[in-house]
Protein backbone atom coordinates (compact mmCIF):
# COMPACT_ATOMS: atom_id res chain seq x y z
CA UNK A 1 0.00 0.00 0.00
CA UNK A 2 2.65 2.47 1.12
CA UNK A 3 4.87 1.57 -1.81
CA UNK A 4 2.01 2.03 -4.26
CA UNK A 5 1.46 5.57 -2.96
CA UNK A 6 5.18 6.29 -3.23
CA UNK A 7 5.30 5.14 -6.86
CA UNK A 8 2.16 7.11 -7.74
CA UNK A 9 3.69 10.29 -6.29
CA UNK A 10 7.01 9.59 -7.99
CA UNK A 11 5.36 9.02 -11.36
CA UNK A 12 3.37 12.25 -10.89
CA UNK A 13 6.54 14.26 -10.15
CA UNK A 14 8.42 12.82 -13.11
CA UNK A 15 5.50 13.12 -15.50
CA UNK A 16 4.93 16.75 -14.61
CA UNK A 17 8.66 17.46 -14.90
CA UNK A 18 8.75 15.95 -18.40
CA UNK A 19 5.69 17.99 -19.38
CA UNK A 20 7.40 21.10 -18.01
CA UNK A 21 10.38 20.60 -20.30
CA UNK A 22 8.44 19.62 -23.40
CA UNK A 23 5.60 22.16 -23.18
CA UNK A 24 5.34 24.49 -26.18
CA UNK A 25 4.20 27.52 -24.22
CA UNK A 26 6.32 29.01 -21.50
CA UNK A 27 3.37 29.65 -19.18
CA UNK A 28 2.25 26.05 -19.40
CA UNK A 29 5.71 24.82 -18.62
CA UNK A 30 5.71 27.02 -15.48
CA UNK A 31 2.40 25.44 -14.44
CA UNK A 32 3.71 21.90 -14.96
CA UNK A 33 6.79 22.81 -12.93
CA UNK A 34 4.44 24.01 -10.21
CA UNK A 35 2.64 20.67 -10.15
CA UNK A 36 5.95 18.87 -10.05
CA UNK A 37 6.98 20.91 -6.99
CA UNK A 38 3.64 20.23 -5.33
CA UNK A 39 4.33 16.57 -5.98
CA UNK A 40 7.64 16.87 -4.13
CA UNK A 41 5.79 18.51 -1.24
CA UNK A 42 3.28 15.67 -1.19
CA UNK A 43 6.20 13.23 -1.03
CA UNK A 44 7.36 15.02 2.10
CA UNK A 45 3.83 14.85 3.50
CA UNK A 46 3.74 11.14 2.78
CA UNK A 47 7.02 10.74 4.71
CA UNK A 48 5.42 12.72 7.58
CA UNK A 49 8.00 15.52 7.28
CA UNK A 50 5.27 18.12 7.59
CA UNK A 51 7.45 21.13 8.30
CA UNK A 52 9.67 20.55 5.27
CA UNK A 53 6.58 19.99 3.13
CA UNK A 54 5.00 23.25 4.26
CA UNK A 55 8.25 25.15 3.68
CA UNK A 56 8.55 23.56 0.24
CA UNK A 57 5.08 24.85 -0.64
CA UNK A 58 5.60 28.31 0.83
CA UNK A 59 9.00 28.89 -0.76
CA UNK A 60 8.66 27.20 -4.14
CA UNK A 61 4.96 27.39 -4.90
CA UNK A 62 3.94 30.54 -3.07
CA UNK A 63 7.13 32.43 -3.78
CA UNK A 64 9.26 31.31 -6.68
CA UNK A 65 6.61 30.04 -9.08
CA UNK A 66 4.48 33.14 -8.50
CA UNK A 67 7.50 35.30 -9.34
CA UNK A 68 8.21 33.19 -12.44
CA UNK A 69 4.61 33.59 -13.57
CA UNK A 70 4.84 37.33 -12.98
CA UNK A 71 7.94 37.52 -15.10
CA UNK A 72 6.12 35.57 -17.85
CA UNK A 73 3.14 37.93 -17.63
CA UNK A 74 5.40 40.92 -18.10
CA UNK A 75 7.07 39.54 -21.21
CA UNK A 76 5.58 39.88 -24.66
CA UNK A 77 4.38 36.93 -26.68
CA UNK A 78 3.95 34.71 -23.65
CA UNK A 79 1.00 33.04 -25.37
CA UNK A 80 2.89 32.08 -28.52
CA UNK A 81 4.58 28.76 -29.10
CA UNK A 82 8.28 28.68 -28.42
CA UNK A 83 10.53 27.81 -31.40
CA UNK A 84 11.93 24.29 -31.61
CA UNK A 85 15.53 24.08 -30.43
CA UNK A 86 18.13 23.21 -33.04
CA UNK A 87 19.34 19.63 -33.53
CA UNK A 88 22.76 20.42 -32.10
CA UNK A 89 21.21 21.63 -28.86
CA UNK A 90 18.93 18.62 -28.66
CA UNK A 91 21.88 16.24 -28.94
CA UNK A 92 23.88 18.22 -26.37
CA UNK A 93 21.01 18.22 -23.86
CA UNK A 94 20.38 14.49 -24.40
CA UNK A 95 24.05 13.83 -23.67
CA UNK A 96 23.90 15.97 -20.53
CA UNK A 97 20.82 14.07 -19.33
CA UNK A 98 22.51 10.72 -19.91
CA UNK A 99 25.64 11.86 -18.08
CA UNK A 100 23.62 13.11 -15.11
CA UNK A 101 21.56 9.93 -14.99
CA UNK A 102 24.66 7.75 -15.06
CA UNK A 103 26.30 9.83 -12.31
CA UNK A 104 23.23 9.65 -10.05
CA UNK A 105 22.62 5.93 -10.53
CA UNK A 106 26.27 5.12 -9.83
CA UNK A 107 26.08 7.17 -6.62
CA UNK A 108 22.83 5.48 -5.57
CA UNK A 109 24.22 1.99 -6.13
CA UNK A 110 27.53 2.79 -4.44
CA UNK A 111 25.83 4.24 -1.36
CA UNK A 112 23.55 1.23 -0.85
CA UNK A 113 20.72 2.72 1.24
CA UNK A 114 19.95 0.96 4.51
CA UNK A 115 16.86 1.79 6.57
CA UNK A 116 17.74 3.64 9.77
CA UNK A 117 16.46 2.23 13.07
CA UNK A 118 16.16 5.71 14.64
CA UNK A 119 12.57 6.98 14.35
CA UNK A 120 11.86 10.38 12.86
CA UNK A 121 11.30 13.28 15.21
CA UNK A 122 9.29 15.84 13.29
CA UNK A 123 8.58 18.26 16.11
CA UNK A 124 9.06 21.83 14.88
CA UNK A 125 10.48 22.89 18.25
CA UNK A 126 13.41 20.54 17.74
CA UNK A 127 14.16 22.05 14.34
CA UNK A 128 14.21 25.52 15.87
CA UNK A 129 16.45 24.44 18.75
CA UNK A 130 18.86 22.78 16.36
CA UNK A 131 18.90 25.83 14.12
CA UNK A 132 20.00 28.18 16.93
CA UNK A 133 22.16 25.69 18.81
CA UNK A 134 25.73 26.97 19.30
CA UNK A 135 26.97 23.66 20.69
CA UNK A 136 27.82 20.41 18.94
CA UNK A 137 25.82 19.75 15.76
CA UNK A 138 24.17 23.15 16.01
CA UNK A 139 23.47 25.32 12.99
CA UNK A 140 23.79 28.76 14.60
CA UNK A 141 26.72 29.90 12.46
CA UNK A 142 25.33 28.84 9.05
CA UNK A 143 21.94 30.23 10.08
CA UNK A 144 23.42 33.62 10.94
CA UNK A 145 25.61 33.62 7.82
CA UNK A 146 22.58 32.97 5.61
CA UNK A 147 20.56 35.65 7.38
CA UNK A 148 23.41 38.14 6.79
CA UNK A 149 23.44 37.16 3.12
CA UNK A 150 19.69 37.67 2.82
CA UNK A 151 19.91 40.99 4.63
CA UNK A 152 22.60 42.14 2.20
CA UNK A 153 20.43 41.06 -0.73
CA UNK A 154 17.46 42.96 0.71
CA UNK A 155 19.47 46.13 1.26
CA UNK A 156 20.81 45.84 -2.28
CA UNK A 157 17.28 45.53 -3.68
CA UNK A 158 16.14 48.59 -1.75
CA UNK A 159 19.11 50.62 -2.95
CA UNK A 160 18.42 49.66 -6.57
CA UNK A 161 14.70 50.32 -6.30
CA UNK A 162 15.04 53.55 -4.31
CA UNK A 163 13.98 56.65 -6.16
CA UNK A 164 16.56 59.38 -6.58
CA UNK A 165 15.63 61.87 -3.89
CA UNK A 166 17.26 64.87 -5.60
CA UNK A 167 14.66 67.17 -7.17
CA UNK A 168 14.58 67.10 -10.97
CA UNK A 169 16.14 70.34 -12.24
CA UNK A 170 14.33 72.00 -15.07
CA UNK A 171 16.54 72.81 -18.02
CA UNK A 172 17.05 76.51 -18.56
CA UNK A 173 16.56 76.48 -22.30
CA UNK A 174 13.06 75.01 -22.32
CA UNK A 175 11.65 77.50 -19.81
CA UNK A 176 13.21 80.51 -21.55
CA UNK A 177 11.94 79.30 -24.91
CA UNK A 178 8.34 79.38 -23.83
CA UNK A 179 8.78 82.88 -22.46
CA UNK A 180 10.32 84.09 -25.69
CA UNK A 181 7.81 82.40 -27.95
CA UNK A 182 4.81 83.90 -26.27
CA UNK A 183 5.27 87.58 -27.26
CA UNK A 184 5.97 86.55 -30.83
CA UNK A 185 2.67 84.73 -31.05
CA UNK A 186 0.97 87.78 -29.62
CA UNK A 187 2.53 89.98 -32.31
CA UNK A 188 1.58 87.78 -35.25
Amino acid sequence: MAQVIFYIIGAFILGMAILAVTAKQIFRSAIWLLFSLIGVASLYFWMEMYFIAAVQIIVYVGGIIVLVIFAIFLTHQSDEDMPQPSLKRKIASALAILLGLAFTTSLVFQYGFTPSPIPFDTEVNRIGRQMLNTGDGGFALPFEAISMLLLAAMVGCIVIAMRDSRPIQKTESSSSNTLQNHPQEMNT
Partner: protein
Amino acid sequence: MMFSLENITNSIHEWLYANLNATLALIIEFAIIGVLVIGLFAALGLVLIMMERKVSSWMQLRLGPNRVGPGGMFQTVADTIKLIVKEGMTPDRVDKLLFNLAPFIVMVIAMVVMAPIMFAKGFQIWDINIGVLFVLAVSSISVIGILIAGWASNNKYSLLGAMRSGAQIVSYELSAGLSVLAIVVLSGGLRMSTIIDAQQTGWWLFKGHIPAIIAFVIFIIAVTAETNRAPFDLAEAESELTGGFHTEYSGMKFALFFLAEYVNIFVVCAIGATLFLGGWMPFHIGNWQAFNHVMDYIPSSIWFFGKTFLLIFIIMWFRWTFPRLRIDQLLQLEWKYLLPISMFNLLLATVVAIAGWHF
Protein backbone atom coordinates in the same frame (compact mmCIF):
# COMPACT_ATOMS: atom_id res chain seq x y z
CA MET B 1 -22.21 17.48 28.09
CA MET B 2 -25.52 16.74 26.45
CA PHE B 3 -24.43 17.33 22.88
CA SER B 4 -20.89 16.52 21.87
CA LEU B 5 -19.55 15.98 18.37
CA GLU B 6 -16.50 14.28 19.87
CA ASN B 7 -18.58 11.40 21.23
CA ILE B 8 -20.37 10.91 17.92
CA THR B 9 -17.16 10.75 15.90
CA ASN B 10 -15.50 8.47 18.47
CA SER B 11 -18.37 6.01 18.46
CA ILE B 12 -18.47 5.94 14.65
CA HIS B 13 -14.71 5.38 14.58
CA GLU B 14 -14.87 2.54 17.11
CA TRP B 15 -17.81 0.88 15.39
CA LEU B 16 -16.08 0.97 12.01
CA TYR B 17 -12.82 -0.48 13.32
CA ALA B 18 -14.64 -3.16 15.33
CA ASN B 19 -16.74 -4.41 12.42
CA LEU B 20 -14.50 -3.96 9.38
CA ASN B 21 -10.84 -4.46 8.57
CA ALA B 22 -8.52 -1.48 8.96
CA THR B 23 -8.11 -0.47 5.29
CA LEU B 24 -11.82 -0.57 4.53
CA ALA B 25 -12.62 1.35 7.69
CA LEU B 26 -10.07 4.02 6.75
CA ILE B 27 -11.54 4.34 3.26
CA ILE B 28 -15.05 4.64 4.67
CA GLU B 29 -13.87 7.33 7.09
CA PHE B 30 -12.30 9.22 4.17
CA ALA B 31 -15.58 8.98 2.29
CA ILE B 32 -17.56 10.26 5.29
CA ILE B 33 -15.17 13.19 5.69
CA GLY B 34 -15.38 13.98 1.97
CA VAL B 35 -19.17 14.02 2.05
CA LEU B 36 -19.17 16.17 5.19
CA VAL B 37 -16.71 18.68 3.70
CA ILE B 38 -18.68 18.97 0.47
CA GLY B 39 -21.88 19.34 2.46
CA LEU B 40 -20.29 22.04 4.59
CA PHE B 41 -19.18 23.77 1.38
CA ALA B 42 -22.67 23.85 -0.04
CA ALA B 43 -24.16 25.00 3.25
CA LEU B 44 -21.51 27.71 3.69
CA GLY B 45 -22.03 28.98 0.16
CA LEU B 46 -25.76 29.32 0.68
CA VAL B 47 -25.56 30.83 4.15
CA LEU B 48 -22.68 33.23 3.54
CA ILE B 49 -24.02 34.65 0.28
CA MET B 50 -27.40 35.17 1.91
CA MET B 51 -25.70 36.78 4.92
CA GLU B 52 -23.65 39.07 2.69
CA ARG B 53 -26.70 40.26 0.80
CA LYS B 54 -28.71 40.86 3.95
CA VAL B 55 -25.86 42.61 5.78
CA SER B 56 -25.17 44.86 2.81
CA SER B 57 -28.82 45.77 2.39
CA TRP B 58 -29.27 46.50 6.08
CA MET B 59 -26.23 48.73 6.13
CA GLN B 60 -27.64 50.65 3.17
CA LEU B 61 -31.17 50.79 4.63
CA ARG B 62 -32.48 48.54 1.87
CA LEU B 63 -34.58 45.41 2.17
CA GLY B 64 -32.30 42.97 0.36
CA PRO B 65 -33.63 39.78 -1.25
CA ASN B 66 -37.23 39.30 -0.05
CA ARG B 67 -39.16 37.53 -2.80
CA VAL B 68 -38.13 33.86 -2.81
CA GLY B 69 -39.35 32.11 0.31
CA PRO B 70 -39.99 33.74 3.69
CA GLY B 71 -37.86 36.87 3.95
CA GLY B 72 -35.99 35.88 0.78
CA MET B 73 -34.46 32.85 2.52
CA PHE B 74 -34.34 30.69 -0.61
CA GLN B 75 -32.89 33.32 -2.92
CA THR B 76 -29.43 31.73 -2.88
CA VAL B 77 -30.93 28.29 -3.51
CA ALA B 78 -32.65 29.68 -6.59
CA ASP B 79 -29.40 31.35 -7.69
CA THR B 80 -27.50 28.09 -7.25
CA ILE B 81 -30.01 26.16 -9.35
CA LYS B 82 -29.74 28.83 -12.03
CA LEU B 83 -25.95 28.60 -12.05
CA ILE B 84 -26.00 24.80 -12.20
CA VAL B 85 -28.27 24.63 -15.23
CA LYS B 86 -26.50 27.48 -17.00
CA GLU B 87 -24.19 26.59 -19.88
CA GLY B 88 -20.52 26.66 -18.91
CA MET B 89 -19.04 28.49 -21.86
CA THR B 90 -15.44 27.98 -22.94
CA PRO B 91 -14.60 30.86 -25.28
CA ASP B 92 -12.59 30.41 -28.46
CA ARG B 93 -8.82 30.92 -28.35
CA VAL B 94 -8.48 30.30 -24.64
CA ASP B 95 -6.03 27.76 -23.30
CA LYS B 96 -8.77 25.16 -22.84
CA LEU B 97 -6.98 22.84 -20.43
CA LEU B 98 -5.80 25.54 -18.04
CA PHE B 99 -9.05 27.50 -18.40
CA ASN B 100 -11.04 24.53 -17.16
CA LEU B 101 -8.45 23.55 -14.57
CA ALA B 102 -8.25 26.90 -12.75
CA PRO B 103 -11.62 26.90 -10.90
CA PHE B 104 -10.95 23.40 -9.65
CA ILE B 105 -7.50 24.34 -8.32
CA VAL B 106 -9.03 27.22 -6.36
CA MET B 107 -11.78 24.95 -5.07
CA VAL B 108 -9.55 22.05 -4.08
CA ILE B 109 -7.19 24.37 -2.23
CA ALA B 110 -10.10 25.84 -0.29
CA MET B 111 -11.09 22.27 0.67
CA VAL B 112 -7.60 21.20 1.71
CA VAL B 113 -7.17 24.24 3.95
CA MET B 114 -10.14 23.06 5.99
CA ALA B 115 -8.22 20.00 7.23
CA PRO B 116 -6.60 21.37 10.42
CA ILE B 117 -9.52 23.55 11.56
CA MET B 118 -11.01 22.47 14.87
CA PHE B 119 -14.77 22.83 14.50
CA ALA B 120 -15.59 21.77 18.04
CA LYS B 121 -13.95 20.13 21.01
CA GLY B 122 -12.17 17.09 19.60
CA PHE B 123 -13.82 17.48 16.18
CA GLN B 124 -11.11 17.98 13.60
CA ILE B 125 -10.13 16.31 10.35
CA TRP B 126 -6.35 16.27 10.80
CA ASP B 127 -4.51 17.52 13.90
CA ILE B 128 -1.28 18.04 11.95
CA ASN B 129 1.65 19.22 14.06
CA ILE B 130 2.28 22.30 11.90
CA GLY B 131 -1.43 23.30 11.84
CA VAL B 132 -1.20 27.05 11.26
CA LEU B 133 1.82 26.77 8.97
CA PHE B 134 -0.07 24.21 6.89
CA VAL B 135 -2.92 26.67 6.40
CA LEU B 136 -0.54 29.48 5.44
CA ALA B 137 1.35 27.24 3.02
CA VAL B 138 -1.60 25.65 1.26
CA SER B 139 -3.62 28.86 1.01
CA SER B 140 -0.66 30.42 -0.85
CA ILE B 141 -1.35 27.99 -3.73
CA SER B 142 -4.78 29.47 -4.41
CA VAL B 143 -3.16 32.54 -5.98
CA ILE B 144 -1.85 30.18 -8.69
CA GLY B 145 -5.42 29.26 -9.56
CA ILE B 146 -6.24 32.93 -10.01
CA LEU B 147 -3.12 33.55 -12.11
CA ILE B 148 -3.93 30.55 -14.32
CA ALA B 149 -7.51 31.75 -14.76
CA GLY B 150 -6.32 35.21 -15.71
CA TRP B 151 -3.76 34.03 -18.22
CA ALA B 152 -5.79 31.22 -19.79
CA SER B 153 -8.78 33.48 -20.46
CA ASN B 154 -6.82 35.28 -23.19
CA ASN B 155 -8.40 38.56 -22.12
CA LYS B 156 -6.57 41.68 -21.02
CA TYR B 157 -8.98 42.43 -18.19
CA SER B 158 -8.49 38.95 -16.83
CA LEU B 159 -4.73 39.25 -17.10
CA LEU B 160 -4.70 42.63 -15.33
CA GLY B 161 -6.96 41.30 -12.60
CA ALA B 162 -4.78 38.25 -12.12
CA MET B 163 -1.60 40.34 -11.90
CA ARG B 164 -3.12 42.66 -9.34
CA SER B 165 -4.36 39.71 -7.38
CA GLY B 166 -0.94 38.09 -7.47
CA ALA B 167 0.87 41.20 -6.27
CA GLN B 168 -1.71 41.65 -3.56
CA ILE B 169 -1.74 38.12 -2.20
CA VAL B 170 2.04 37.73 -2.28
CA SER B 171 2.54 40.92 -0.30
CA TYR B 172 -0.28 40.53 2.23
CA GLU B 173 0.75 36.96 2.97
CA LEU B 174 3.78 38.38 4.77
CA SER B 175 1.93 40.44 7.33
CA ALA B 176 -0.74 37.76 7.78
CA GLY B 177 2.04 35.27 8.49
CA LEU B 178 3.83 37.60 10.90
CA SER B 179 0.65 38.36 12.86
CA VAL B 180 -0.05 34.64 13.09
CA LEU B 181 3.51 34.10 14.29
CA ALA B 182 2.95 36.55 17.15
CA ILE B 183 0.23 34.24 18.50
CA VAL B 184 2.32 31.15 17.79
CA VAL B 185 5.10 32.67 19.90
CA LEU B 186 2.67 33.37 22.72
CA SER B 187 1.13 29.88 22.73
CA GLY B 188 4.38 28.04 21.99
CA GLY B 189 3.20 25.67 19.25
CA LEU B 190 1.92 25.48 15.69
CA ARG B 191 -0.58 22.71 16.35
CA MET B 192 -4.18 23.91 16.45
CA SER B 193 -4.99 21.98 19.62
CA THR B 194 -1.90 23.43 21.38
CA ILE B 195 -2.96 26.96 20.48
CA ILE B 196 -6.51 26.36 21.74
CA ASP B 197 -5.30 24.68 24.94
CA ALA B 198 -3.07 27.69 25.64
CA GLN B 199 -6.24 29.78 25.78
CA GLN B 200 -7.86 27.71 28.52
CA THR B 201 -7.62 30.60 30.96
CA GLY B 202 -8.57 33.33 28.53
CA TRP B 203 -8.54 34.21 24.87
CA TRP B 204 -5.33 35.62 23.45
CA LEU B 205 -7.10 38.77 22.36
CA PHE B 206 -7.74 39.56 26.05
CA LYS B 207 -4.75 38.12 27.84
CA GLY B 208 -2.10 38.83 25.18
CA HIS B 209 -2.02 42.58 25.88
CA ILE B 210 -1.04 45.01 23.12
CA PRO B 211 0.82 42.61 20.78
CA ALA B 212 -2.22 40.35 20.50
CA ILE B 213 -4.54 43.25 19.74
CA ILE B 214 -2.20 44.70 17.10
CA ALA B 215 -1.74 41.24 15.61
CA PHE B 216 -5.52 40.77 15.51
CA VAL B 217 -6.09 44.04 13.64
CA ILE B 218 -3.29 43.31 11.16
CA PHE B 219 -4.53 39.77 10.69
CA ILE B 220 -8.06 40.91 9.87
CA ILE B 221 -6.80 43.51 7.38
CA ALA B 222 -4.35 41.10 5.74
CA VAL B 223 -6.85 38.26 5.33
CA THR B 224 -9.41 40.65 3.89
CA ALA B 225 -6.80 41.47 1.25
CA GLU B 226 -5.84 37.83 0.79
CA THR B 227 -9.39 36.75 0.07
CA ASN B 228 -9.67 39.53 -2.54
CA ARG B 229 -12.56 41.24 -0.83
CA ALA B 230 -13.47 44.90 -0.84
CA PRO B 231 -11.84 47.29 -0.06
CA PHE B 232 -9.03 45.19 -1.56
CA ASP B 233 -11.03 43.70 -4.45
CA LEU B 234 -8.86 45.16 -7.21
CA ALA B 235 -8.51 41.72 -8.74
CA GLU B 236 -12.16 41.70 -9.76
CA ALA B 237 -12.91 45.42 -9.64
CA GLU B 238 -16.21 45.44 -11.54
CA SER B 239 -16.06 49.09 -12.45
CA GLU B 240 -12.60 48.87 -14.04
CA LEU B 241 -12.03 45.27 -15.09
CA THR B 242 -15.59 43.92 -15.68
CA GLY B 243 -14.91 41.11 -13.25
CA GLY B 244 -11.15 40.66 -13.32
CA PHE B 245 -9.83 37.13 -13.50
CA HIS B 246 -13.29 35.53 -13.80
CA THR B 247 -14.52 37.77 -16.62
CA GLU B 248 -14.71 34.91 -19.10
CA TYR B 249 -16.19 32.34 -16.76
CA SER B 250 -19.85 31.47 -16.63
CA GLY B 251 -22.15 28.84 -15.20
CA MET B 252 -20.75 26.32 -12.76
CA LYS B 253 -17.12 27.33 -13.30
CA PHE B 254 -17.93 30.85 -12.22
CA ALA B 255 -19.91 29.42 -9.32
CA LEU B 256 -16.83 27.51 -8.18
CA PHE B 257 -14.79 30.75 -8.03
CA PHE B 258 -17.61 32.46 -6.20
CA LEU B 259 -18.02 29.61 -3.75
CA ALA B 260 -14.28 29.37 -3.17
CA GLU B 261 -14.20 33.07 -2.28
CA TYR B 262 -16.79 32.59 0.43
CA VAL B 263 -15.28 29.37 1.71
CA ASN B 264 -11.91 31.13 1.92
CA ILE B 265 -13.51 33.85 4.00
CA PHE B 266 -14.90 31.20 6.31
CA VAL B 267 -11.53 29.47 6.57
CA VAL B 268 -9.54 32.60 7.39
CA CYS B 269 -12.16 33.70 9.91
CA ALA B 270 -12.07 30.25 11.48
CA ILE B 271 -8.28 30.56 11.77
CA GLY B 272 -8.70 34.03 13.27
CA ALA B 273 -11.26 32.71 15.74
CA THR B 274 -8.91 29.88 16.70
CA LEU B 275 -5.85 32.08 17.14
CA PHE B 276 -7.33 35.13 18.82
CA LEU B 277 -10.73 34.14 20.22
CA GLY B 278 -9.90 30.70 21.58
CA GLY B 279 -11.56 28.45 18.98
CA TRP B 280 -14.23 26.37 20.69
CA MET B 281 -13.26 27.60 24.18
CA PRO B 282 -16.23 29.15 25.99
CA PHE B 283 -16.03 32.67 27.32
CA HIS B 284 -14.94 32.73 30.94
CA ILE B 285 -14.57 35.59 33.36
CA GLY B 286 -12.02 35.04 36.13
CA ASN B 287 -13.66 33.60 39.23
CA TRP B 288 -17.32 33.95 38.39
CA GLN B 289 -18.08 30.24 38.86
CA ALA B 290 -21.81 30.43 38.08
CA PHE B 291 -21.27 32.47 34.92
CA ASN B 292 -18.52 30.15 33.74
CA HIS B 293 -20.71 27.08 34.25
CA VAL B 294 -23.49 28.63 32.20
CA MET B 295 -20.98 29.38 29.45
CA ASP B 296 -19.66 25.79 29.61
CA TYR B 297 -23.19 24.52 29.04
CA ILE B 298 -23.27 26.00 25.52
CA PRO B 299 -21.91 23.38 23.06
CA SER B 300 -18.38 24.02 21.79
CA SER B 301 -19.42 23.90 18.14
CA ILE B 302 -21.79 26.81 18.74
CA TRP B 303 -18.96 28.78 20.33
CA PHE B 304 -16.71 28.11 17.36
CA PHE B 305 -19.27 28.99 14.70
CA GLY B 306 -20.43 32.03 16.67
CA LYS B 307 -16.93 33.46 16.82
CA THR B 308 -16.24 32.66 13.18
CA PHE B 309 -19.42 34.33 12.02
CA LEU B 310 -18.64 37.37 14.18
CA LEU B 311 -15.35 37.76 12.30
CA ILE B 312 -17.10 37.17 8.97
CA PHE B 313 -19.51 39.93 9.91
CA ILE B 314 -16.59 42.28 10.61
CA ILE B 315 -15.10 41.53 7.19
CA MET B 316 -18.47 42.14 5.55
CA TRP B 317 -18.74 45.35 7.53
CA PHE B 318 -15.41 46.44 5.95
CA ARG B 319 -16.72 45.64 2.50
CA TRP B 320 -19.85 47.74 2.81
CA THR B 321 -18.08 50.69 4.41
CA PHE B 322 -14.79 51.39 2.68
CA PRO B 323 -14.14 52.42 -0.92
CA ARG B 324 -11.74 50.39 -3.03
CA LEU B 325 -8.01 51.16 -2.78
CA ARG B 326 -5.83 52.01 -5.74
CA ILE B 327 -3.06 49.52 -6.51
CA ASP B 328 -0.30 51.86 -5.28
CA GLN B 329 -2.23 52.65 -2.10
CA LEU B 330 -2.70 48.94 -1.59
CA LEU B 331 0.99 48.16 -1.84
CA GLN B 332 1.88 51.23 0.22
CA LEU B 333 -0.42 50.09 3.02
CA GLU B 334 1.26 46.72 3.10
CA TRP B 335 4.91 47.59 2.69
CA LYS B 336 5.01 50.90 4.54
CA TYR B 337 2.55 50.29 7.34
CA LEU B 338 1.40 46.71 7.97
CA LEU B 339 4.71 44.95 7.42
CA PRO B 340 6.94 47.16 9.63
CA ILE B 341 4.29 47.30 12.32
CA SER B 342 3.80 43.54 12.32
CA MET B 343 7.56 42.93 12.43
CA PHE B 344 7.85 45.24 15.42
CA ASN B 345 4.80 43.56 16.90
CA LEU B 346 6.38 40.12 16.57
CA LEU B 347 9.37 41.41 18.54
CA LEU B 348 7.02 42.79 21.19
CA ALA B 349 5.14 39.50 21.37
CA THR B 350 8.42 37.64 21.84
CA VAL B 351 9.38 39.95 24.71
CA VAL B 352 5.96 39.47 26.31
CA ALA B 353 6.17 35.69 25.91
CA ILE B 354 9.70 35.46 27.34
CA ALA B 355 8.98 37.78 30.25
CA GLY B 356 5.66 36.01 30.88
CA TRP B 357 3.69 39.24 31.05
CA HIS B 358 0.55 37.66 29.68
CA PHE B 359 -1.90 36.27 32.18
